[in-house]
């Protein structure tokens, strides 16, 4: 589709010049959440698995990154790897148990694991409790080639990481594996009767999603220079669901838009004082009542209608 191509091209150009107009730290944070939301959506939109505990991968990866870079004093690349690997491993363990259940039960098991992980983070000494793991140094990447002290330079690094993650998800969805995954989502019994061990496919999807959520979390720790309990908390798991919903389920770009909207909302509503939550809540209500397909979904609809005329 040509329109899509053009759309992507416009978006990439926009992303490249964005730091000229918007504050780079804000953009980086939004990109991290966007990647996180995409990872979540991979699971929900394409494997039909609704996770209520995705913050455990996102948040833990942040801690892994922080520990590796601060306490062990290793390179940021090692931190990112540790974040991705750690999250994938955590995904493998929790996923192996969780994917045996479906629907709301699956969601609740992931929530349960996330709560346990949260408890662990409160107790474990290296996380710093509610104070968080603070002051992770920003080190240069690629053995000193890319200095990251400058927010604008770091922005392009984060953009590259995001694009890598996004492309990976796109590929997963449009791969032979993705095809089977969609079949399993549609009718698991039937897929089994065709000879597919549904659980293994779901587990792989779960691990991939966890790993990408981990990439997002580790990148965020790199940008923000701290990792805190907020990122492993149930509220963050809820937030990512909201991002996917607000952007539009079942579209691959939807979660990105949703993440930008919610992160922007948190940042700009911050200046409305005590009414932040009221306004945020009201916006959710309006979205459900008026833009239920999400921003992207509604836009696509509008576009289609326009084309039809």
């Amino acid at each position: 589709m040509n329109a899509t191509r053009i759309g992507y091209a416009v978006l990439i150009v926009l992303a490249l010049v964005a730091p000229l107009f918007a504050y780079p730290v804000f953009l980086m944070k939004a990109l991290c959440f966007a990647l996180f939301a995409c990872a979540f959506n991979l699971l929900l939109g394409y494997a039909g698995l609704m996770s209520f505990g995705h913050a455990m991968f996102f948040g833990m990866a942040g801690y892994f990154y922080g520990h590796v870079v601060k306490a062990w004093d290793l390179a940021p690349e090692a931190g990112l790897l540790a974040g991705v690997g750690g999250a994938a491993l955590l995904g493998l363990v929790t996923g192996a148990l969780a994917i045996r259940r479906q629907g709301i039960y699956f969601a609740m098991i992931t929530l349960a694991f996330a709560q346990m992980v949260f408890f662990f983070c409160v107790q474990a000494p290296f996380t710093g409790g509610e104070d968080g793991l603070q002051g992770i140094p920003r080190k240069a990447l690629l053995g000193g080639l890319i200095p990251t002290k400058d927010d604008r330079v770091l922005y392009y690094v984060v953009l590259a990481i995001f694009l890598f993650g996004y492309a990976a998800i796109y590929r997963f969805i449009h791969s032979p594996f993705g095809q089977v995954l969609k079949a399993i989502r549609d009718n698991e019994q039937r897929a089994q009767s065709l000879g597919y061990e549904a659980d293994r496919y779901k587990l792989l999807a779960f691990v991939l999603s966890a790993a990408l959520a981990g990439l997002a979390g580790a990148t965020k720790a790199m940008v923000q220079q701290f990792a805190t309990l907020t990122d492993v908390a149930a509220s963050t798991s809820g937030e990512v669901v909201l991002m996917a919903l607000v952007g539009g389920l079942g579209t691959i770009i939807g979660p990105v838009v949703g993440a930008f909207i919610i992160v922007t909302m948190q940042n700009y509503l911050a200046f409305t004082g005590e009414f932040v939550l009221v306004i945020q809540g009201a916006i959710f209500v309006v979205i459900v009542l008026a833009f239920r397909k999400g921003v992207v979904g509604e836009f696509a609809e509008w576009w289609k209608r326009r084309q039809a005329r």
Partner: protein
Amino acid sequence: MFELLGIPPQALFGQLLLGLINGAFYAMLSLGLAVIFGMLNVINFTHGAQYMMGAFAAWLLLGILDVPFWASLVIAPIIVGLFGIVLEKLLLKRIYHLDHLYGFLLTFGLALVIEGLFQWKWGSSGAPYPNPIPGGFNLGFMFLPTYRGFVVLAALVICLATWYGIERTKLGAYLRAATENPTLVRAFGINVPRLITLTYGLGVGLAALAGVLAAPIQQVSALMGVNLVLVVFAVVVIGGMGSIMGSIVTGFGLGLIEGLTKVFYPPASNTVIFVVMALVLLIKPAGLFGQTK
């Protein structure tokens, strides 16, 4: 005398009793949540806010109109239940045909709005509600406030009445059937939308009732229900979704387990419910009392 891990059995008794009291709240709250989830296919994230509204309604009734606790026990749930009905008619009604994620988004947003407005008006620290039956019994091993004893009894009565209404009456059968296939039940001549509205009102009323009962025990504050929904929903899931009896038994049971955790490993007392949930779901896929379709 024999001791269990260094705790004298008498003290353990006391702790179990306290656990039971907390379980009573879980049971009442999960009941409402289960009924609503069953019928509307919506995880009612406003449940905590409605619980809070119940407590506030009682507090306001007392402060402004001098309505005594016992009258509030009836009036407050009705007021909040009616509020729930209005919400249902205006908002929730529009989303039933959608995935239950939208219900999550909508009710979550509503909870933020309601709690935010209450906090704006009455602050975050809240106000105390006087104990309607002060005093207590000395049970020998512990001091039991009379009011807490009353709570357990009241909760039992409420739970059993709800259970009977849903599992053993015709109306309950309509409810259960409409949960599965509202279109068809409607085509049998039953006014399903009204049934749904009333159910939501009932579930909300139950939450508010729990709130009124909690008011004398806890500080009445805008944020008293914030963290409740997840825990209570976990109770519903452990009990087996759609099973009213499951919610009740699990509510009380988890109160006990939580009570024991508070003695043996207090830091985990909020987490233990989730551990139990994971274990139960791994062993019994549909919860303790749930049926597979």
